[in-house]
């Protein structure tokens, strides 16, 4: 079976689903973050794949590059927030931090 666009897309879909799974199930905030990274990577794979197969030139790659930069920034901020949460609640378990309820 010749590797085509669909293959890449399936891989990215599965990777994305796993990211979602991580976000939904894990208690630790850092793991949630990792899930997000997975999702971003999945999206990036799509960008690059479309860039190659869709005839869009290099734009997809450039966007992917931007997404990486965003991810880096996001990771930095998010970790800083996690540290802060830790300082406040003495843990980083997302399910115990339900201040949004009230």
């Amino acid at each position, binding site marked *: 079976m010749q590797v085509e666009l669909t293959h890449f897309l399936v891989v990215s879909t599965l990777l994305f689903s796993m990211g*979602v799974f991580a976000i*939904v*199930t894990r208690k630790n905030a850092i793991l949630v973050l990792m899930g997000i990274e997975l999702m971003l990577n999945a999206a990036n794979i799509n960008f690059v794949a479309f860039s190659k197969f869709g005839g869009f030139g290099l734009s997809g790659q450039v966007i992917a590059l931007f997404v990486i930069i965003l991810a880096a920034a996001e990771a930095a901020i998010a970790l800083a927030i996690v540290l802060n949460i830790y300082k406040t609640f003495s843990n980083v378990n*997302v*399910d115990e931090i339900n201040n*949004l309820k009230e």
Partner: protein
Amino acid sequence: MSLISLSIITLFLPLIGFTVLIFFGKRFEKIYLFEVGILFAALIISILIAYFKLTAYINQDLIFAFTWIDFGVTPLIGEFSIDLGIKIDNITVLMLFVVNLISFLVHLYSIEYMKGDIRFTRYFAYLGIFTFSMLGIVLTHNILMMFMFWELVGLSSYLLIGFWYEKDSASDAGKKAFLVNRVGDIGMLIGILILFTNYHTFTFDEIYAQIAVGNLPFDSYAWLTASGILIFMGAVGKSAQFPLHVWLPDAMEGPTPVSALIHAATMVAAGVYLLVRIFVMLTADAMLVIAVIGAITALVSATIALTQNDIKKVLAYSTVSQLGYMVLSIGIGAYAFAFFHLMTHAFFKACLFLGSGSVIHAMHHEQDIREMGGLKKKLPITYYTFLISSLAISGVPLFSGFLSKDGILAGSLAFGNLTGHWLLPIIGFTVALMTAFYMFRLVLVTFHGKPRNQEKFDHAHESPKAMTIPLITLAALSIFIFYTPNPFNSEAGWVLSDWIRTPEQVVPNEVRFDFMKSDAATGQSEITHSQMYTDAAHHAHYPAMILSLVLAGIGILIAFMMYVWGKIDSEKLKTKYNSLYKFSLNKWYIDEFYDASFIAGTHKSAKILAWFDYNVVDGIVNGTAALGRFVSMLSGWFDTYVVDGLVNFFALLNGFLGLSLRRIQTGKVQTYVVFVVFSLLVLMFFFRPF
């Protein structure tokens, strides 16, 4: 300097005095001397004016006028403007002299009389503004300006009567004076309006010129008569004629020099002065009304004066009575005597009041003559001046009162003869009798006999010079020699033969008295302008003189018999004619009648209207508001329970749904993500491309 500028100066001098005293009165204690000095200057100037006018310009009137308000060309009545100005004729200068002289003497007198009063300079300021307003009345050449100054003297009278406003009776009297005068002024105002509406001018001479050419108000004699009577109403108020005389006796609450100046000599005579001014436009009917009012006034007040015990009240009623004489005199056409009596009365009545002031001063503000007696020894100067003035007012020969009063009585007799109105002379002579009686009652009870209140008597003492000099001056002026060389014939004197001329009336012949008709007139030299009337008056002269002498003698005799010789017991008379005595003592119950009718009626209607205002007019407003509130309450109820009820129902429904959905809200982000995922699935299902 022309006489005009001199008279303007003398007009404004007292006003300057008033202004200075009002503004600087507190700072300088002696500033009242400024006012007295100013009055002295005014007196000198008025003497100069009188001298020049009566010599150089004796037959020439001086007029100065300027446009006060210019209306330009108006659409309805064309060009018109309101002019103010002054007119100087013989009457003016005489009056100017009288006012300034008495005013100056009263100022002088007041220095001692008012000494120690807390509002001493204010008193002089008020006198200043009074003098100013009075001179304004005297000098004016138009009726509007006269009305304005008329009101201003009302103001100064109000202020001076209520000068001791701490006493309720004083402030009441001031208010009463002002309001009663206003009643008359309303009539005067309407009269002025009638004239102005027809002639578009306020100037006396222009109005008379129009009437003279047969231009009648609203083309009817009735309106001419009406305007005359209405303007006379102003005089009724100011000169305290019946039925508006009630304010004058009450006005005695003011300081006594004020009573002398304002309520005896000058201001109350302004009414007569007004009549003198409008004499030429009075129709026969109007004159008859005036004569009757004058006669009634003279009679009513003379009867009241008989029984009063307050020295000032007696004098007040005698003033009203004498003013009645003057008004009567105008009414019967004895123009010259009216003005002559005004002058003579001004002097002797001022003297009487100042004399009474001297007595009151000596008796420490005791005014009841029953507490006096025997003061002759203690107050000789006061006594003799008082006596001279009493003789004058009683119509005893050699004194001024005789000259003028005799003329009036002769005139009334002639008038009765010519027209058949005999009641007028009868009243006139009756009043002459009463006058002599009550004046001598006053003199005898006050100065003769034994002191009734020994303590007060012991403390009595003659007044200081500043008070006696005016007394002496005024008493001297009550002697015949200043007016005529012949004590029995006033017409021989310079006042009547040279200075005062009766002008010819301007009203159409149809509405004049027969004897005043223009064909009955014969030139300017006679006192009454009408030959027929002059003849009649000459015929009546001796009978009137003899009759009045006899009556005055009888009056004085009765007074002596009652109060000196004790031949007639006054107490017995009192009990015998108790109801009559009470009637007179209570002033014919006129005040009570006014209180019960007009004043109570006004207050009652004020209360009713106020009630009407609060409850009906405002009630309608508030009722409308209440109705509005009720409707809005109804709609509010509808809104709350029906319209809003529906809304609330949905809200409740939502709330219920929300409550049940609330369980989903865990606050955990992850749960939300699960929902997102599920929702995405659902969306994907719905929007699936296959």
